[in-house]
């Protein structure tokens, strides 16, 4: 099975003074070539940590405890820092960070930063590199002249496009997008989403699209992975999750809490309580404290990821004999 990325039982903990925060706790999924996997969850569920873990760059004091990350079949967890830096980062897998607005070094022009990254990984003549940069800037809808601009001279939308172009021009196998549209206005947001769709089609890229907004996810992702408190709650295709057949109460509650534009929603539901403290998460299913359909079993045993239908799995005791 031509999966570009294979994550098996990944565990990443933040070792703070007060103990180990289990940000990513035994997560497994795979990403096929040319496919977009949507990683959705509320703040603090470990989605950004997951993205950084794939680049083997957990923000300190985070550390990968266990599990493996296979890119094109090669596990990058045991690799040394220099090996990862030279052969994995931006070559095999690149990332558009959450605060893309200040991911460009303020004192260098856009062109110089792109040139530096390009020629660091591929030895090529200067004009050849400039040609590639101009091409990719064009792809994201920016004039080649942007190369001479400093970051502070660009608007939010333009900076977003530059960062996306930079994530693409080394033609990596996988591109991680962490909340790329959250800080933008709705129209610019739509334009960026359209851009990503075109890039996916033309460059046959596989995306890992991380966001907390279900609506954006439905717009972009082929398959969806819902995370809650560091663990996988549900995984399934776009149709399976959003088509009404979602298996996990958390996903169903989230969908019911998202206001719709095209039909008058009389009553907006919500989930009482707040996400659990990952220092000592609740026993059994981590959602059981807030789950309206909780059973005794949920409180004691951690539910396994159960196949509900082909390619659709959910970690909830209700699905076990459902």
């Amino acid at each position: 099975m031509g999966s570009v990325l294979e994550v098996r039982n990944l565990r990443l903990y933040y070792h703070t003074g007060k103990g180990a925060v289990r940000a990513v706790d035994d997560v497994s999924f795979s990403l096929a070539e040319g496919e977009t996997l949507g990683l959705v969850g509320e703040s603090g569920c470990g989605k950004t940590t997951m993205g950084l873990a794939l680049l083997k760059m957990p923000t300190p004091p985070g550390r990968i405890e266990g599990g493996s990350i296979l890119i094109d079949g090669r596990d990058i967890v045991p690799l040394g820092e220099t090996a990862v830096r030279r052969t994995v980062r931006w070559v095999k897998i690149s990332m558009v960070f959450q605060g893309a607005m200040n991911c460009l070094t303020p004192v260098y022009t856009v062109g110089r930063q792109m040139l530096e990254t390009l020629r660091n990984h591929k030895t090529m003549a200067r004009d050849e590199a400039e040609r590639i940069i101009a091409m990719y800037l064009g792809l994201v809808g920016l004039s080649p002249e942007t190369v001479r601009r400093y970051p502070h001279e660009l608007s939010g939308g333009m900076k977003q496009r530059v960062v996306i172009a930079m994530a693409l021009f080394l033609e990596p196998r996988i591109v991680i997008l962490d909340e790329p549209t959250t800080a933008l206005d709705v129209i610019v947001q739509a334009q960026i989403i359209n851009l990503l769709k075109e890039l996916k089609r033309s460059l046959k890229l596989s995306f890992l699209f991380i966001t907390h907004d279900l609506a954006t996810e439905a717009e972009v992702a082929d398959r969806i992975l819902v995370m809650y408190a560091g663990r996988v709650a549900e995984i399934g295709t776009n149709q399976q999750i959003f088509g009404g057949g979602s298996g996990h109460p958390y996903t169903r509650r989230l969908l019911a809490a998202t206001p719709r534009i095209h039909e008058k929603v009389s009553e907006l539901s919500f989930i009482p309580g707040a996400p659990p403290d990952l220092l000592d998460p609740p026993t059994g299913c981590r959602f059981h404290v807030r789950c309206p359909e909780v059973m005794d079993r949920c409180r004691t045993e951690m539910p396994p990821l159960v196949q509900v239908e082909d390619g659709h799995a959910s970690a909830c005791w209700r699905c076990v004999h459902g």
Partner: protein
Amino acid sequence: MAERDLLVVKDLKKWFPVRRSLGQWMAGTERPAVRAVDGVSFEIRKQEIFGLVGESGCGKTTTGKLVMKLLEPSSGTLEFDGMDVTRVTAEELARYRRNVQMIFQDPYASMNPRFKIREVLDEPLSIHKVGADGRERADRIARALSEVKLTPVEEYLDRFPHMLSGGQRQRVATARTLILSPHLLVADEPVSMIDLSTRAEILHMMKDVQRDLGLSYLYITHDLSTARYFTDRLAVMYLGRIVEIGRPDDVIGAPRHPYTRALIAAVCEPVPGKVSTCREIPIKGEIPSAADIPPGCRFHPRCVFAGPECAQEPGPELTEVGADHGAACKRLSEI
């Protein structure tokens, strides 16, 4: 109008003069100004939730601050409960402050991190010297907290803001505004920084409070979907002016202004089957800067239906297009 409107805003303007460079000053060019709010008129009835929707930089937050009298208007009038409050003396302002309160976007930043919740809630009381003694003030604070359903009250009084979740903090901020029993609450993006799962909870709380205390809301947001669910009437703003106003079902259900249409087209829905299709948004180019606003209809450079007359002065006025539904566009009939 059967009942008198609570708040009437007529042709409100707020221009921020931009510092001219030495050269411009020499040449005597007229001082350029950022026209953040450029002639806005609307009214809010009693017990009504009025929404102000628009992209960032459209002037909705500035309008909120003008209503809160945190900023002095460049021109236009502001009428509250029948009284002209555009220019007020100090005591009139103090009384106005008791009637009109504000909830801010970032629940954490709107409270002094070094104050306990008790002190946060005590501030309005000590400012307006309400409550004869400590006991009455403590009682008012307890009542306000239970109003926003943060019970048992004792559990929260001695905690610091950083010990509460986003939702709880926004409840404390709301309680702080209710303590002086205002009539109008200006809420600037109250739920945009709160997690999806607790966002509806806060909106419910605000609706209950409105019903119990007969409040009106000026609800400012960029999120059209929440506006459709939460508001009774809403206005869409673009570059400092209202382009469409009316009930949410009309404005969002059957939008007449091209900009409103573009906004609605750009909003995504959590429904399957749209992965492969590119969303078609009827709009062109990027939003111009508020310092040099296009002549005539300010939307015409980006409007797909723009005709020659759209670029000529004067710009379109709000015209009735349905029951309690207006839009500002010269080519309403052709769209």
